[in-house]
């Protein structure tokens, strides 16, 4: 009796037990989704920005200042161009533009280093008169071939070969891995296999603090501690004030926590049964760790190394402070050489003018950086995913 009364009351209310119309609840889902999708938008943003600016860099003419000024007034019809000495040499088939005009001039004949014959109004532009003292700019087109095979990076004079920057980046990353792999792996094995809870509670926060130090502080450390130390050991004549070794070592210290944390997780994920079987057969803890656990966790450990390599490749502040400012194609770790990230940081300090050759070249470097780190991260993720499949 009572039951049916309740039911009757409920049915009186509009809609009964049916889902009520709740606009807030329904719309909130979409708001949340948009926020989630924003991360995808960020990725797309990165790809578009880097891609379009880099494309712009490779497909359109940029201008470099030739440091030449006109010394004889050039009328609208004159074809003999005389410029000051000491600037960049003007070469046959170079396209020139003169300060504060849109006209393009094509060099058809080189008389001597500062006198050339030009074709006026190249590419349909309007010939105008040019006064004495105007700057001459050389149009520069950077090809992919030049970018990827060139061994000089000198934006002021129009050399855009990525190798000096790339080798320095690779050098620093390899030095970093050389230090961080044994130390990080040793740390991981100790923490997962040997350490008591008490020891762990001391060692683990140490690693966390090391991982949390801002990299600019580590840069300061590299420059004011590591470099003098290295110069003390190897001699101030061998080791330059700014050098890749010091930066590489400190980048290595920076990635130790990353390697140890990820490797430790991988080692811990190996089933207990494997470990106990090995110990039960009479293997020592060292033998168990290196012959059973490590091989079983190998893919996870390698994933950690790759991830750390990617982190080292993209690290900026340590190298910007300690590795040197100036591209240098060398494999000598005692020499200064600028890395990709270091170059980006140095060039973009202050007000960089949009659309300049420097501005566009940064994005081509950014694209290389993004490509390499993303590839490494994807490989690492892929390995980790496969590893998980085996043991879960």
């Amino acid at each position, binding site marked *: 009796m009572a039951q049916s009364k309740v039911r009757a009351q409920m049915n009186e209310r509009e809609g009964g037990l049916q889902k009520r119309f*709740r606009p*807030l*609840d329904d719309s*909130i*889902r979409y*708001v*949340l*989704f948009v*926020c*989630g999708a*924003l*991360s*995808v938008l*960020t*990725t797309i943003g990165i790809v578009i*920005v880097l891609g379009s*600016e880099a494309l712009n860099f490779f497909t359109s003419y940029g201008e470099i200042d030739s440091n030449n000024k006109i010394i004889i007034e050039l009328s609208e019809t004159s074809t003999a161009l005389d410029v000051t000495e000491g600037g960049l040499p003007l070469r046959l088939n170079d396209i020139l533009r003169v300060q504060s005009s849109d006209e393009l001039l094509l060099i058809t004949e080189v008389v001597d280093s500062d006198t050339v014959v030009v074709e006026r109004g190249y590419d349909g532009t309007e010939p105008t008169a040019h006064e004495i003292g105007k700057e001459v700019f050389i149009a520069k087109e950077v090809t992919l071939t030049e970018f990827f095979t060139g061994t000089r990076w000198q934006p002021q004079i129009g050399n855009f070969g990525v190798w000096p920057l790339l080798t320095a980046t690779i050098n620093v990353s390899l030095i970093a891995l050389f230090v961080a792999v*044994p130390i990080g792996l*040793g740390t991981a094995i*100790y*923490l997962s296999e040997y350490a008591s809870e008490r020891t762990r509670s001391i*060692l683990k926060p*140490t690693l966390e*603090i*090391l991982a*949390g*130090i*801002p*990299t600019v*502080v*580590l*840069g*300061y*450390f590299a420059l004011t501690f590591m470099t003098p130390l290295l110069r003390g050991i190897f001699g101030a004549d061998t080791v330059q004030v700014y050098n890749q070794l010091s930066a590489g070592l400190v980048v290595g*210290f920076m990635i*130790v*926590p990353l390697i140890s944390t990820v490797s430790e997780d991988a080692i811990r994920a190996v089933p207990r049964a494997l470990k106990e079987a090995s110990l039960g057969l009479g293997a*020592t*803890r*060292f033998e168990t760790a290196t012959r059973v656990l490590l091989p079983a966790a190998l893919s996870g450990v390698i994933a950690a190394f790759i991830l750390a390599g990617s982190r080292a*490749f*993209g*690290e*900026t*502040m340590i190298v*910007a*402070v300690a590795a040197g400012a100036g591209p240098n194609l060398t494999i000598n770790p005692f020499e200064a050489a600028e890395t990709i*990230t270091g170059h*980006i*940081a140095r060039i*973009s*300090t*202050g*007000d960089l003018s*949009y659309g300049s050759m420097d501005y566009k070249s940064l*994005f081509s470097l950014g694209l290389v*950086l993004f490509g390499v*780190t*993303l590839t490494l991260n994807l490989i690492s*993720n892929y390995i980790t995913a496969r590893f998980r499949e085996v043991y879960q």
Partner: protein
Amino acid sequence: MSEKVPVLQKREEFGASLKRRQLIGTIWQRLFFAANVFSIIILLAVAFNVANGAFGYVVFTYSVLPEELSERPLVELSEPELVDLLVQKVPNRLRVILRDNLSQVPNTVFTTEPLKTVLAGKVFSTELAGKTVNDLTEQEIALVLSDNLAQEEFVKIITRQIVIPNISESWNLVDSLTNRGEIEKLAAEKYPEGDLVFYSWLNLDFVTSSVSSNATTAGLRTALLGTMWIMIVVVTVSFPIGLAAAIYLQEYADQNSTVSKVIATNIRNLAGVPSIIYGMLGLAVFARVFEFYTSGRFVGVTDSNGRTVLTAGLTLGLLILPTIIINAQEALKAVPSSLRDASYGMGATKWQTVSRVVLPNAIGGILTGIILAVSRAIGETAPLIVVGASTFIGIDPNGVFSKFTVVPIQIYQWTSRPELVFKNAAAAAIIVLVAVLLLLNSTAIYLRNRYGIRI
């Protein structure tokens, strides 16, 4: 199984090999332990190195020796005596002193506006109210100054304007402690009029003075304010968005659907993108494309380009978004599903469950995650260099459309200077930065322990 089963070794052979194996085991155990100790050593070396730079002997030299100004120490002089000193020694700098200490208007209109606007709220005789600063005589300025400033402030002004102490040379802590005699000798020879003092580069003046091209007077105030403003933007932007994304991924999305898988993978990969790339994104999108908005031109700000606090905050906000999402997801995951089921059982809708049951239970973990992410953002340097942090700004940032510099960028710039005195300043700035980070991290640890959530 064609291989032969190995014959068990003889007892003594086995014993010998066991010993060897155990020895190898022990040696390697020590080596593994040494790997841990290595990290501790590095940490100690970093701390030592910073302390080494931030404290030590310095030589102060002066443009005018304080003894030449008066026979008694400056602090013992009365206010009228100090004012007299100012009028005698630097009559032409009185207006600048007035501007730096009392002006209530922007520097551009300081000399053109009447005194009643320029010194609004300050004490001055009513006859001067209509005059501009340029109309005032030196005596009148001195009077206005002495009416408004206390004796200690005059001591400071005289020190800064007349005495002008300058640190000519500095030594680091280790040298100062071990080589004291030699330093004293050297300082006495090289700077006979200078004062050799044991100096802490980290001091109240350092934290409260503005940026300067002189290491002696350079301070961190501008950079600290910049960091503060940027963090306000970062939190305002990335907290709601990050939390919303985490709620969607954890509570709403079907974990197995392609869309949520793509989003999750994407977030993981974004977390691995080098921070300098975010800087380039910020430069091209926030600073350049949206310059109209980020420069504040749309609300009438005219004196800035797109390289503002807002741009920097948005860039860093994007940078830490993946971290915030991942941490918040962990916190949401830690809420027992029985609570959700109970809520649904009571007839609550999804959003009611999320907002009134899940979120209150996860808030500790979420806040911890935010604090950790923000402390990462505070230490970031590279992306801010790329979006165009100012190398030198004289005015404190006072809103989201100001130019900015931050503490890590100051450290970078000071470290890059060849002079040792700037490296000392950098070391002091590092201590300030690390203190801020430690404060934030301890708050995070406190929250973590209080709410018992592991991240």
